[in-house]
């Protein structure tokens, strides 16, 4: 679905800080959504946490730098890091170029897959949430 120029695929879950989540068997894949990569601008660095790092839902677990700002990535679920996208180490711009594809960031093994259902999902909910954020972050 496209919402005011932002590409927000219908089959994904979204975390409130604008990270997307896709379920793949017993793991989830996550990355920045189109709105977040647009707000961030050119991504300069992405931290790749080690495999097995424990994640607490809602808490930050990695850093991303863009526009001289060191931001945080928040865990969408409780779980452990299963894999980080090594390609981002040399080419963080993949997040800007293809945020849902080659710009994926982390794979996570959730403690309880049911937690993804707490994320934002479905055309109606996503649209309502995104439109509110577009309004909130509208530049003067």
């Amino acid at each position: 679905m496209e919402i005011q120029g932002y590409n927000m695929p219908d089959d994904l879950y979204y975390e409130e800080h604008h990270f997307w989540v896709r379920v793949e068997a017993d793991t989830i894949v996550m990355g920045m959504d189109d709105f977040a990569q647009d707000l961030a601008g050119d991504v300069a660095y992405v931290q790749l946490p080690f495999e097995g790092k424990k994640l607490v839902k809602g808490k930050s677990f990695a850093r991303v730098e863009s526009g001289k700002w060191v931001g945080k990535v928040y865990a969408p679920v409780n779980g452990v890091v299963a894999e980080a996208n090594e390609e981002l180490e040399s080419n963080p711009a993949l997040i800007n170029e293809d945020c849902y594809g080659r710009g994926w960031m982390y794979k996570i093994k959730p403690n309880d897959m049911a937690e993804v259902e707490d994320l934002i999902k479905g055309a109606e909910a996503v649209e309502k949430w995104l439109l509110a954020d577009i309004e909130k972050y509208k530049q003067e």
Partner: protein
Amino acid sequence: METFRLLDMPPMTAAENMALDEALLELKGRGETPNTVRFLRFSPPAVLVGLHQSVSEEVRTGYCEAHGIQVNRRITGGGAIFFDESQLGWEIICDKAFFGLPIVNAGLFKALCDPVVTALAGWGLEAAFRPRNDIEIAGRKIAGTGGAESEDAFLFQGTLLIDFQVDAMLAALRVPVEKLEAREIDSIGQRVTCLCRELGHAPPLAAIKEALCDGFERRFHIRLEPGGLTGAEADAFRAKLPAFESEEWIDQIRPKCPGARTVQAACRVRAGLVRFTLVADPCRRRLQDLYITGDFLAVPARGLYDLQAALRGAPLDREKIRASVQGFFDQGKLRIAGMSAEDFLKPLDRAFEHPLLRTRHGSGGSSWRR
């Protein structure tokens, strides 16, 4: 009206200032400390690299050691800076909720720079915020900023140039001066300005701080109340200091492949010579810096400074760089007498024919210590 603490401690070492930044940000992130405006000064002088930069690529460590300049790593992003007594650092350590924006964005940067713009206006200076995060006067940068976040709080910091020692900066940082022509080195000085140059004198430090405080109070609708460190902050600061003094912190990022390379190309077109010097980081595919010089006439003059500022740190992608330059021409932000955008871009195209810029490096980047 909310009260912020004003934290104005005596000059500190680089490690002390960095350790205090992290202590304040972490405690603020846990909601254990007040919203704060802080002034920073460094003694001895320091070179500070951005969180994700490598010291060996950015700093002339031999020169720094010989001249008593300390080297450290910020907790914020961005590029390496030289910080001596002719600069004043300012910081806002604050709940994200104060600005109502959980995700950091360009609008927030502008809001955070507003108090400093207001302070400069008090001296009659027409300063303005320049995206993403500089403050400029007539296109020349007078303050650069950066930031970091921790849970529900952020730290935003900037440096205001009171005076500017271009020679000391060039000696301490790995600006590729050997590769640059005299007028390109001049252009480094020209794209930056300072209070001394704008006002003809440097106001006393106390007056500068007072003007900034007034700017913060007016623009944020807050009241500043001078205060010291809380017990918890002092404890966290002491606990963190050894780590910030350690090589593990300062040398945390090591380059895996050769760093920045300089590529130059010049073309003579109808109205004059245009020369592009690209400082490229092929590993991370970034345009680290860019110097455009020549014997052409740019109108307005600031257009050239703004263009270079806009392209610094951009992806090393010819089409994207071309589009940015074209945009400046199309929007009337830059005109070159007797030249079209295509004419002006010829040296850029030629630079991209250089093998260094054509090769795509599949591996590289910096190594993370995890």
